[in-house]
């Protein structure tokens, strides 16, 4: 079974440019997460979806970041415009559980490494 697939793996852009990341979760997983991981640090949650509903976007910088999960499957994360401080690895994860069933069984993709020049 395929794991969580993310693209692109690497992206280099100049500041003020837009960028988008795509994630395809594990089939059947209704909960999808976007995390940001700065160098030498643990991942930090940006947004969590249950099906197509964003149930926790409190950590998403809404002035420049947006996300969507149309049809409750694939998701995209967009940054517009990008800033130098956005350089990080953007991780997507999915889980078969959500809501009342908190579980650590999050399956992560390999991430999209963004470098903003």
């Amino acid at each position, binding site marked *: 079974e395929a794991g*969580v697939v993310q693209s692109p793996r690497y992206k280099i852009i100049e500041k003020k440019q837009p960028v988008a990341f795509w994630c395809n979760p594990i089939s059947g997983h209704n909960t999808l997460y976007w995390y940001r991981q700065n160098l030498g640090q*643990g*991942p930090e949650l940006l947004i969590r979806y249950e099906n197509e509903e964003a149930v926790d976007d409190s950590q998403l910088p809404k002035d420049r970041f947006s996300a969507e999960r149309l049809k409750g499957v694939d998701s995209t994360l967009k940054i517009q415009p990008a800033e130098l401080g956005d350089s990080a690895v953007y*991780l997507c*994860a999915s889980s078969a559980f959500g809501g009342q069933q*908190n579980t*650590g069984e999050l399956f*992560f993709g390999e991430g999209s490494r963004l470098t903003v020049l």
Partner: protein
Amino acid sequence: GESVGLHLPTLSVQEGDNSIINCAYSNSASDYFIWYKQESGKGPQFIIDIRSNMDKRQGQRVTVLLNKTVKHLSLQIAATQPGDSAVYFCAENNSSYKLIFGSGTRLLVRP
């Protein structure tokens, strides 16, 4: 605020020895804890979890210990192998269902 931290940023062990990675958490309301392993260029991989009603849980070559009194979590890896070299994160989950990761410990296995 909520925070999860690690005592040692880097741990170097001899192949075959046991490894112990420690983690402190600050949110006493957290009721679920997880250890993840992250190899270079990859996403974190679930290792083992433990709920707050338990003190110890064992997996294959790994054991997680939870001390709620001092809010401390540890991961023990038996007979450490070169393939165990990675960054290890502890994470806590409270009733808000938000997984909060610590900053990680890098485990280096010497041949």
